[in-house]
């Protein structure tokens, strides 16, 4: 399993020993008061009330209760949902590939590319990402087993389970711990130190968007650490092995095997696969960047979260994420990451439950005076673009 990948010793206390009595009111309250990190602090979205330690714990208990109620209700309809999604992926992928392989002319090509892109998006986001979080482990179904699932993307499943399920979801938005903040090279907040290289980050962001699956795949290799001398080449080589294996398979599948099967249509199939992968890249990039990098989303210092309890962790997930508004189909095509807040509060609950949970989460947040970031895709994308452009320049925190 993952043990060889885990290099960072974990200093967090055990939950059993972690339930410290409520004390140290002043420092704790200061710690959980969210920081508004945008230079335009004071805009309507950014102001959450600072909570006392007792309130933080009560907030956590309410969310725990919500989680418990959902767990108790899990059943056939959740399994029906994910299985229908898996079927949908199969049908659209088969249909798309058939059109690319046997179709003639630009129209079947366009429809085929769209169908294949849709299949890859659904497989990566609504099926793969969610299954790999363990959202369906309770079913005992080997086809829905988080540890065995392998998705249709160049990123190795075990790498993802480590860098995403563990690092990103545990240390969400903690500077220096959550490597998803700017993916190691983008400055998405004025609280990150500015470097001259950030001047070209708008181009870097576009490149990442186009090649997003490769960014995701390389993420857990820590290449930046090898470049700066903090990780040996030997370690990098060892870490790269599963990636090279997986990426090799994916490339062979999309650009050798399927084109070869298409005989004379080989160039059409290879191009179609490339475009489908590209569309999937752009879409996943857009959804994921809108989940964590719009204005108003908070970043945290490691020291300030050192003795965070469960309620504090919930608060950090809430203030470190932003939702997207849209239709049911839109939510499904984002893998329900349009409910990034609910996903971060309850990463192992079936994602199709997030739309039902959202109003209840919002209601709890409202009672505790906590901001709930949400907006349309267009608005949030604009906000992310603004952040990337503005932070390319050396602005002060």
């Amino acid at each position: 399993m993952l043990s060889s990948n885990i290099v960072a010793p974990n200093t967090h206390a055990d939950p059993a020993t972690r339930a410290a009595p409520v004390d140290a009111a002043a420092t704790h309250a200061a710690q959980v008061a969210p920081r508004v990190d945008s230079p335009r602090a004071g805009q309507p979205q950014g102001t959450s009330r600072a909570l006392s330690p007792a309130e933080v714990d009560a907030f956590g208990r309410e969310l725990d209760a919500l989680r418990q109620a959902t767990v108790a209700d899990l059943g056939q309809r959740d399994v029906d949902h994910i299985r229908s999604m898996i079927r949908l992926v199969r049908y659209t992928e088969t249909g798309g590939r058939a059109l690319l392989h046997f179709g003639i002319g630009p129209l079947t090509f366009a429809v085929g590319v769209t169908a294949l892109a849709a299949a890859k998006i659904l497989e990566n986001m609504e099926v793969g990402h969610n299954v790999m979080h363990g959202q369906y482990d309770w079913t005992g179904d080997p086809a829905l087993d988080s540890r065995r699932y392998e998705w249709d993307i160049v990123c190795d499943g075990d790498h993802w389970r480590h860098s995403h399920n563990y690092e990103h979801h545990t240390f969400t938005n903690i500077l220096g711990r959550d490597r998803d903040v700017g993916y190691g090279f983008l400055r998405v907040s004025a609280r990150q130190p500015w470097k001259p290289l950030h001047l070209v980050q708008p181009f870097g962001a576009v490149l990442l968007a186009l090649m997003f699956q490769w960014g995701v795949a390389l993420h857990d290799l820590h290449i930046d650490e090898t470049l700066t001398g903090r990780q040996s080449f030997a370690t990098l080589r060892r870490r790269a092995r599963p990636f090279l294996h997986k990426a090799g398979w994916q490339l062979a599948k999309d650009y050798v095997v399927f084109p070869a099967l298409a005989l004379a249509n080989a160039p059409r199939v290879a191009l179609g696969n490339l475009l489908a992968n590209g569309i999937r890249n752009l879409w996943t990039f857009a959804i994921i960047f809108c989940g964590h990098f719009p204005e108003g989303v908070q970043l945290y210092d490691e020291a300030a979260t050192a003795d965070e309890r469960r309620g504090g962790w919930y608060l950090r997930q809430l203030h470190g994420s932003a939702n997207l508004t849209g239709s049911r189909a839109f939510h499904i095509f984002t893998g329900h990451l349009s409910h990034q807040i609910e996903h971060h509060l309850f990463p192992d609950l079936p994602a199709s439950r997030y739309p039902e949970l959202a109003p209840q989460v919002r209601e709890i947040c409202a009672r505790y005076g906590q901001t709930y970031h949400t907006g349309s895709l267009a608005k949030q994308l604009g906000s992310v673009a603004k952040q990337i452009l503005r932070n390319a320049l050396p602005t002060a925190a």
Partner: protein
Amino acid sequence: GVRVRRNYSISSGSSAPGARRIEITVRRVPGGRVSTALHRLRRGASVGLDLPAGDFVLDPDSDRRLLVAGGSGITPIRAMLRDLAAASDREAATARDRAPASHSAPASAHVVVVHVARSAHDAIFAAELASLATRLPWLHVHAWRDDRGGRLDTAALHALVPDLADRETFVCGPPGLIDLVSTAASSVGAGHRVHHERFVVTAPATTIAAATIQLLRSDTTVVADGAGSLLVQLERAGQRPAHGCRMGICNTCRCRKRTGTVEDLTTGAVSSEPDQDIRLCVSVARSDLALDL
């Protein structure tokens, strides 16, 4: 939508009519997950089956047997009886061809059944056993009902089966019954002739002072106290199980629990069924455990 695994005895026997069919007999447990679902099963539903396993099988060579069944422990006993009855019918048929003799007891089979149940209402297969006993001269069935005769004890068992010492004994039922039969047989020097099938009884989740954790893959045993999480306990004992967040989010430490009871500290959920996945970082031992580590 959940897959759950249970072991049931085959109650139809190996030579049942229409040998392609397997019969199991399930007593519906109030609040029981699988037994309730099985009782509600509709025609056409799919049920996964694993290979049969176990060593509770008839000894082909013994000529005098005692079969003791308690509660739903009757199911494998019934299968054994059906096998014996079918063998006897076959022998009778061959014998009839040669000389018109009726159902004589096959020399190899003299069987006493003690069928223990709480009440007549609770006794599964009582009518079938009674009709078999009328038909087959070599079969004696004693129906013991707790609500009439009180609990079966060794004295009563000796009274029902005076020749216990001479019999190969097969017992299936709750642990108390198995102990009772074993004690009774041992007292007449036949303890080694008792074969039994135990039911897995799920232990209630109670805080315990110490638990033995068996790590099946590495073939080691760790002693843990009943307080800290399993992850901490294992680490304290020098083990290095895979883990991540240590707070029940990331799923890295998920592992298969083969037997035993644990409690999830974050949810209070108790897992006592065999072969369930648990997260080490948020689970505490509530009994001795066997883990797939």
